[in-house]
């Protein structure tokens, strides 16, 4: 198939950036979207142009490195990471717009690469259980109901890709934050720090310049790991509880 790509090119954080059009011929439908970009980059390199910068690493949908907005959709037309999207999802002759995540808290580094360090700083602000190495009790001393363990796992499946932020009209990072609050808050080990965790993480979230959550739900629709929207309800409940206790 033959396609036309319109790709966001921006030399660095200070550059204004613009969409640039490239034609690409003989694209195999079995290629992944990123392999298609590899092929384009090989052609650009040989013709002396700068290849397009984009983040990617495992290419099996788990590391969370990749992620671009394709035709206005975070990770493209199907619910998966960009690396798991294949060219058979597009028609011959398609015109495909490729842009970086757009959010105040994710500044563009170059082309399609953004800085998601804000996510790490949200985790630093409380997204953990303090368990210094060596201090752990015997693992089976603390049974966890299977239902809670399974539910915690579903939230822990977040890969930190940032699609939720890119999809949100407010640029909110609430789904990411709530997934961690839910994962740790459902486990007995997570109880001692439950209040300080939610206060710390939400404070950092706001400090980083993420927008507020207005329950639109675009985040969960774009999430390649299916993190459910009710994690945000849980976060709000925990936050209210923690703030109320703090005042008492």
């Amino acid at each position: 198939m033959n396609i036309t790509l319109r790709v966001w090119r921006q030399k660095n954080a200070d550059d204004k950036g613009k969409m640039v059009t490239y034609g690409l011929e003989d694209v195999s439908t079995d290629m992944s979207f990123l392999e298609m970009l590899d092929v384009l980059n090989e052609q650009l390199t040989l013709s002396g142009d700068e290849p397009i910068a984009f983040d990617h690493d495992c290419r099996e949908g788990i590391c969370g490195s990749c992620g671009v907005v394709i035709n206005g959709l975070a990770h493209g037309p199907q619910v998966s990471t960009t690396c798991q999207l294949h060219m058979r999802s597009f028609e011959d002759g398609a015109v495909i717009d490729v842009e970086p995540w757009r959010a105040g808290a994710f500044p563009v580094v170059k082309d399609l690469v953004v800085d998601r360090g804000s996510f790490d700083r949200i985790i630093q602000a409380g997204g953990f259980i303090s368990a210094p190495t060596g201090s752990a009790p015997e693992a089976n001393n603390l049974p966890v109901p299977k239902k809670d363990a399974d539910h915690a796992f579903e939230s822990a499946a977040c890969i930190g890709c940032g699609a939720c932020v890119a999809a949100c009209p407010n640029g909110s990072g609430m789904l990411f934050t709530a997934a961690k609050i839910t994962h740790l808050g459902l486990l007995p080990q997570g109880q001692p720090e439950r209040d300080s965790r939610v206060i710390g993480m939400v404070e950092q979230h706001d400090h980083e310049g993420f927008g507020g959550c207005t329950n639109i739900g675009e985040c969960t629709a774009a999430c390649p790991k299916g993190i459910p929207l009710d994690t945000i309800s849980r976060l709000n409940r925990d936050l209210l509880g923690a703030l109320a206790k703090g005042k008492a």
Partner: protein
Amino acid sequence: MSTTTNASEQFHSVGVDIADAKAPKGPIEQRWDSRKFNAKLVNPANRRKLSVIIVGTGLAGASAAATLGEAGYHVKSFCYQDSPRRAHSIAAQGGINAAKNYRNDGDSVYRLFYDTVKGGDFRARESNVYRLAQVSVNIIDQCVAQGVPFAREYGGLLDNRSFGGVQVSRTFYARGQTGQQLLIGAYQALERQIGAGTVEMNTRHEMLELIMVDDRARGIIVRDMVTGEIETHTADAVVLATGGYGNVFFLSTNAMGSNITAPWRAHRKGAYFANPCYTQIHPTCIPVSGDYQSKLTLMSESLRNDGRIWVPKVAGDDRLPSDIPEDERDYYLERIYPSFGNLVPRDIASRAAKYQCDAGKGVGPGGLGVYLDFAEAIERLGRPAVEAKYGNLFDMYAQITGENPYEQPMRIYPAVHYTMGGLWVDYDLQSNLTGLFVAGEANFSEHGANRLGASALMQGLADGYFVLPNTIADYLASGPYEKIADDHPAVLEARAAVEERVHKLLSINGTRTVDSFHKELGQIMWEYCGMERSEEGLIKAIGMIRELKAEFWSNVKVTGVNEELNQTLERANRVGDFFELGELMCIDALNRRESCGGHFRAESQTEDGEALRHDDEFAYVSAWEFGGDTPVLHKEPLEYEYVEMKARSYK
């Protein structure tokens, strides 16, 4: 077959034997306690004056950084990704072994030790493996305390499964995402220390050189991958936890960025590289679909429990699988290995697939695939049962190939996915360079010639949480060492070497892309140093790699400049080191004139085509000293006091 001639000697010299001087003697179950007791301690008040550089944030690196940070040392951590959470440990699917014996099925520390030594085909050290089995139980406790959501039974206790052909159920797991959950646990512990100020994190920074001062590892030169700035970082000790080197084959199940540069730079500064030829190849990966292919995806081996592997009986048969009648199919594993059938070990299954494809019977694009057929299982168990067991794997396969595995057989082909070799370390995980420690897949020590399933995660976390923090303290206790000025001659020399290399790569301005060189190198490695190696092939490969390397350094095209995010430059620098590693792998494979674990020499097999070890000649670790075109082989003899050396059989 005779193994007396040694064609490898034209490519290397032989140095003096070496030994692991740190492993205590005495009963094996007391050695680790004895080492810990005899290690020097560091007063908590003095720890913040001591600094450690840790490169890599996978299971080994992140757990070591978090633990040393908690202990009060000043830690500087580095990773090439945009966040420490993305290291490739995250992609491990199956599980993590631990000798908890929760199933009361006869497991014990000794049994895990025994299985690992035997599984490593008697090429690992008994002392190290025993320690690994001992601390395995602490790892599970630690991870649960951090909130790792392992699978549980209805009673709320931890679930286990049997994995990798062992007869006990000792594998802990979190669906098919165990690596992800363990890494997120270590990552969160690491972020906690970053927030507390004990660990200084440097993301998008790649180590390009090791700084040696007065015969001690004292720092690294890194490139800030966003600005291109070349930075100097010094410390009292340096830890490399940078993973494996499967990407020397270009196509592997590793992440695109996984590379050998940090260990290779240390190797060039004198660190021995051990057993580079030991490579693990996994039989059930999704085959290559075209020359644009960038990586390979692993599917769980559990598929072989119900899937039947076959190829057409006649070479070149290009009918659809559904048009090939039963009596024109060759279920070759069932035919050759009637007692184990489709469940033969990884290396045997991989090699058998290669032989079928070499004979022209391969299926799919390029004839590089064999069928894995579930028709019989669907008929026997019903589609819902097959879906319940393998649904997620079938979905993954359908997403990548666009084919429906419920209606037509899957196609599979082997792929490289783990490397047992790595930098040589002693019992303390210290390399032969004083002050340089190596942890996780980057070192060579616990898996011998072959790693068992669910043991990579165990080793990464054992090294990072429990082994290294104890042993490195013994070294740091003699510090802090003299502060290194930024204009120290050793620093200036290392910086100059990096700047010169970057400048060289950017100024060649040739006509071939980095990837085209990397792909060609990968094809050479796969053909001659992959599933089966021979004297003739390896000698040929060494020549081809040398020619390709020379062409690379005169004809590669690297666009852009250093002072920006330049992914082409990053890749070019890594590929430059892969050539040298590939050459050493071939020399190591040439020297090892036996078949063992992940290393199969065509000249060393039984009449039935099974791997044939030569314990009398090769029961040693090959530790290579850098020597340009002529590396120096140092042998570390291996002794087995506890587990009797035996040959395996799967007929």
